[in-house]
């Protein structure tokens, strides 16, 4: 199997599954076929991705590009469609397809209670998502990336709205689509600016050099692209859709809204990194926004009572890390964190799903003491939480360390980078705190009445958890291999603890200790309650409501104004013209008495006038 074929399989196997499911109704309505076909597509994609990685590790380091003209302009090519296979896309494919495979296996059982039609629909969208994400990953230029980017947004919309009968799910789906679509304007216009300036939608060195030569174009383009990243990767203040997106089924949250789709924004930065590098001011803004998002979202996560929302805010926060790192020049750290985060966050979400499946509720207060009933889930959740908190030896520790290092290094060039660095550092402690809070409240302490009958799910549920646990624990030790595969410049040492790492380590332990003190020993019980209104105000009172008000009082009110003007002024003028003609006609009609003699009367007046005129003319000497 060569690179091209492996790439084809990785991308198109899920599409074949999706198309079969979409078009052939009997397959879709048969739950064994539907789930099996979808999972088979993911498996094939995963296998092909592994092959790709193997081929990349051994072969030529130059990217392999297969493309064909998609849009012609006077016979030339505006944009191509195809595959760009290098270490970055290969590694991302592995991450995406592995998580997708685990999620689909998990869903087989998790979605069991759905009716046949809905079950089939679920797997159709799942397969379509995997295809779209793979197409995004292998995109050879930003246009294809944008196309796939919108498609994953579509899948996100469809999957958030999976329970479309529920009004809250419907609203959440729309919100997610609208907010990301708004942000995508940045990508679209950025593409136009880039193409207009340099005549290419790629990110190849020649394009980037040309952009640098045209002065501020790179900055404008990078800023516009970053707007789209903010939407997709839920950066403040466009993060508002992500917590609501938890209305979707939990496996969807794990795959799309934690591991892969939201990371597409980060992936875009990684892919188009040369363009961003040419725009230092955008880099700084990225870092600041990323750092702020990391801190802000972590703070909000502290007081959430819904286990999925805690994880959602923590996703926001971790994406903030990645963006901050990329903004500081830490390409490897950001990308590496993307990969490790994908594994452990997916695992966390699936574990949460397992818990939710057992207690039939999202509320943390409905859980408790589950460690005795669900040992395996307890293990995976705690592992994931520890990795997220950055405890040494786990995947998250290494990638987070890379990020903090990169931020610290950036302060040497520009002191403004101290701000994201400090925010990220503080977030380490907060993350450890809120995750330990969830662990203590959910898995230890007294079980609530919902949790009495909880029990571990079947093999389809725990097997994916275990599969994901492997990279969540071990991924960190493959950092060097990852570095070599992706061809990113940087260094990675497993057993080299930096001072920053030590500090973060200490903060993490502090956070856990605080979590233990506050949630288990119930010290200062009033503190969290006292802080909650503040957090609520920040979240629901300010950002979310500002968007809502903008939509309701800005857009909708404006549209009513437009429609009114259209109907009553513009069309009204037309009607007025029509009605006036009618009125004039009504008046003129009065002359038509219908009496013959009246008509003859008028005709005779005319005849007299004509006769007199012609007589006068002829007397005056005729018409010369």
């Amino acid at each position, binding site marked *: 199997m060569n690179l091209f074929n492996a790439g084809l399989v990785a991308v198109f196997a899920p599409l074949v599954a999706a198309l079969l499911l979409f078009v052939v109704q009997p397959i879709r309505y048969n739950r064994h076929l539907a789930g099996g076909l979808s999972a088979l597509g993911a498996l094939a994609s995963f296998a092909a991705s592994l092959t790709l990685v193997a081929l990349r590790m051994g072969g030529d380091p130059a990217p392999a590009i297969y493309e064909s003209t998609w849009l012609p302009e006077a016979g030339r090519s505006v944009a191509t469609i195809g595959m760009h296979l290098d270490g970055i896309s290969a590694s991302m494919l592995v991450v995406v397809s592995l998580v997708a495979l685990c999620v689909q296996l998990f869903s087989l059982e998790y979605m069991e209670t759905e009716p046949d039609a809905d079950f089939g629909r679920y797997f159709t969208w799942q397969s379509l998502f995997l295809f779209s994400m793979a197409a995004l990953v292998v995109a050879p230029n930003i246009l294809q990336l944008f196309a796939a980017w919108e498609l994953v947004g579509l899948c996100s919309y469809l999957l958030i709205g999976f329970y479309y009968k529920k009004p809250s799910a419907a609203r959440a789906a729309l919100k997610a689509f609208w907010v990301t679509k708004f942000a995508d304007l940045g990508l679209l216009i950025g593409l136009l600016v880039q193409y207009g300036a340099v005549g290419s939608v790629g990110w190849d060195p020649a394009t980037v050099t040309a952009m640098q030569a045209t002065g501020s174009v790179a900055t404008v383009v990078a800023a516009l692209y970053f707007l789209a990243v903010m939407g997709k990767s839920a950066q403040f203040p466009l993060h508002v859709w992500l917590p609501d997106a938890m209305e979707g089924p939990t496996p969807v949250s794990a795959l799309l809204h934690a591991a892969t789709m939201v990371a597409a924004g980060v992936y875009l930065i990684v892919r188009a990194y040369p363009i961003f590098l040419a725009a230092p001011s955008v880099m700084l803004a990225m870092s600041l926004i990323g750092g702020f998002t990391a801190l802000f979202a972590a703070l909000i996560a502290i007081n959430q009572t819904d286990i999925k929302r805690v994880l959602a805010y923590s996703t926001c926060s971790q994406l903030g890390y990645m963006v901050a790192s990329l903004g500081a020049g830490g390409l490897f750290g950001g990308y590496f964190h993307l990969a490790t985060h994908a594994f452990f966050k997916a695992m966390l979400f699936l574990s949460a799903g397992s818990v939710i499946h057992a207690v039939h509720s999202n509320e943390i207060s409905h859980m408790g003491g589950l460690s005795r009933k669900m040992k395996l889930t307890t293990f995976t959740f705690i592992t994931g939480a520890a990795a997220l908190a950055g405890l040494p030896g786990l995947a998250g520790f290494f990638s987070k360390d890379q990020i903090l290092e990169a931020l610290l290094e950036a302060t040497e060039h520009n002191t403004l980078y101290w701000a994201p660095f400090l925010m990220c550092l503080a977030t380490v402690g907060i993350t450890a705190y809120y995750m330990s809070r969830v662990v203590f409240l959910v898995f230890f302490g007294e079980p609530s009445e919902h949790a009495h009958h909880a029990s571990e799910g079947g093999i389809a549920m725990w097997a994916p958890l275990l599969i994901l646990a492997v990279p969540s624990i071990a991924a960190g030790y493959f950092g060097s291999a990852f570095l070599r595969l992706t061809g990113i410049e940087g260094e990675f040492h497993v057993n080299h603890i930096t001072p920053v790492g030590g500090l973060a380590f200490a903060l993490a332990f502090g956070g856990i200790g605080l979590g233990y003190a506050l949630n288990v020993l119930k010290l200062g019980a009033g503190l969290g309650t006292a802080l909650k209104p503040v957090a609520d105000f920040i979240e629901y009172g300010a950002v979310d409501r500002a968007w809502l008000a903008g939509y309701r009082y800005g857009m909708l009110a404006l549209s009513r104004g437009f429609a009114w003007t259209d109907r009553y002024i513009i069309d009204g003028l037309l009607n007025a013209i029509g009605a006036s003609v009618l009125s004039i006609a009504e008046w003129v*009609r009065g002359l*038509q008495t*219908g*009496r*013959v*003699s009246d008509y*003859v*009367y008028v005709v*005779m007046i005319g005849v007299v006038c004509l006769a007199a005129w012609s007589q006068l003319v002829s007397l005056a000497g005729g018409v010369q």
Partner: protein
Amino acid sequence: MMDIRIFLSLAVVLFTIGVYGVLTRRNAVGILLSIELLANAVNLNLVAFGHFGAGAVGQVFALFSVALTVTEVIVGLAIVVLLYRTRQDITVDLASEMSR
């Protein structure tokens, strides 16, 4: 005394009277009578011009005119009869209901 202007003037006077009749008569047959006056005035003109230079052509056209007038009278009277049958009245004012 054989001056064409005398005959033309006579025709004009007849025509004028006919016009006045068409303008003022309210009865369909009355209007038809007035129209006959008009036609006759025209015929007189044609014959007069024939006598004063044009020759037989004047009479030919007068004959054409007579034939046309007769046709018109036939059709006009038929309409009057029809009008009467549907409305029991031939006052043309009432025919103005077509404007409604």
